[in-house]
């Protein structure tokens, strides 16, 4: 059998020569995750992290390694099932998750969002993920994380809705006021509804305060 003229776009360098020896494969990218010094300074709103991602900040194209990033994301969440999370304490899961997001930016969010929103995920892990991503100080993924936290308010799981509420409290962005108001109206659990109201009051107190960082243009 002869397969002539079969177009092969993959693995052909996107340049005009064969000079490059850099192998931009996911294995190498993942090494960056492991080498990222995730926490340099930690308090509620100032986790500063170096960014090693390779995609342009303003890009909307999907990563060429999105499938592999999906596997990496699944691996991070699968490893979290055995962990016990304590309020305010960092965990292996939170470290891995934040490192992943900071390293791969939007592509990482594209990979983790379907997992967190999936009905199949362990709700305690999903809740912890939402709490954690609200702490992250990373402008590149800010709007993706805000979107995910707002979306988490629609979860069928009260635990996940609780995690989203805490995440939004940590993010402290008045942009979440309307989604939270809507969530308060829908919320059937009194204690959680009260928590949401508390966050709502917090955000309304910040309504006229828009920090330059949150509003910076890319």
């Amino acid at each position, binding site marked *: *059998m002869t397969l*002539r003229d*079969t177009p092969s776009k993959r693995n052909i360098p996107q340049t*005009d020569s064969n000079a490059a020896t850099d192998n931009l494969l996911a294995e190498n990218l993942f090494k960056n995750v492991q080498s990222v010094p995730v926490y340099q300074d930690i308090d509620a709103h100032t986790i500063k992290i170096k960014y090693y991602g390779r995609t342009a900040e303003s890009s909307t194209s999907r990563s060429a390694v999105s499938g592999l990033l999906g596997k990496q994301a699944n691996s991070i969440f699968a490893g979290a099932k055995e962990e016990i999370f304590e309020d305010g304490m960092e965990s292996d899961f939170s470290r891995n998750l934040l490192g992943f997001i900071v390293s791969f930016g939007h592509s990482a969010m594209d990979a983790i969002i*379907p997992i967190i929103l999936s009905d199949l995920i362990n709700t305690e892990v999903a809740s912890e993920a939402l709490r954690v991503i609200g702490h992250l100080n990373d402008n590149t993924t800010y709007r993706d994380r805000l979107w995910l936290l707002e979306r988490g308010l629609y979860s069928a799981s009260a635990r996940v809705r609780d995690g989203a509420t805490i995440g939004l409290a940590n993010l402290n962005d008045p942009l979440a006021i309307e989604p939270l108001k809507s969530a308060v109206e829908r919320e059937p659990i009194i204690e959680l509804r009260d928590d949401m109201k508390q966050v709502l009051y917090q955000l309304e107190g910040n309504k006229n305060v828009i920090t330059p960082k949150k509003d910076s243009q*890319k």
Partner: protein
Amino acid sequence: MSTVQIKLDFAAWQAESLRVTCFPSSGTDFNSKNWWFDVVGEQPENTIIRAKDGFRQDEGHVNGRKIVLAIQPIRTDFLMIPNDEEGEIAIGSVQDGLDAFLTIISRWFNIGPSLRRLAFGSVLVFPVESRKSGYELLGNYLPNVKLDSEGTSDFLYQINRPRASKVITSDLMINRLTKWSVLKRGLVGFELSPDAALATTVSSSETLSCRLELDINTSPDYRGDLPQDKLNEIFNELVDLSKEIVSQGDIP
């Protein structure tokens, strides 16, 4: 080949792919099951569903062009791509592809969810005879770059030049991300024989092209949803900005 001194007409470029990416707002709960039928008017040829990931992909041909509709919770992508099963590596004239694409997108805006962000992406190519002529052509589009067309290779220039929207004048910025390069492409064939222990590659032809990747998108920093009744206008603005870059090059 003689040195190219001028910029090309928009229609001279070939489209390798076109993409529209729509980012739904967080409060929108949508059912995408019938989107393909609603915009194309017939059932898709193939559908892939990964329930665990919340992923659905419908694909088929519209007027001979391959269209893919890929839906994830955070984004919906419409793609126009070459018929790879027929060995195509481009979808043809960018203008023709665009006209067909715009019709589909416009229909979807009427049935789709509220959006917080919108993007128009395209990969355009123009065949050249040599790296030198490719660099000379790129040089005409990149006034801020001094290109040595004979002593260099592997040139890649990526830049974002954001600009304020003229449709939504209240602080909507539009990212104008472009990537310029010269691409060498090869067609690789394999001979497989029952008698041969290993497959052998067949000698391949190589072509060179100027390559322009455009990713024109509304900024993620825009606070709020894009007005539903302005989606067509915003999208047309993204397309017009793409055309401006293609015809005028990397300008502020």
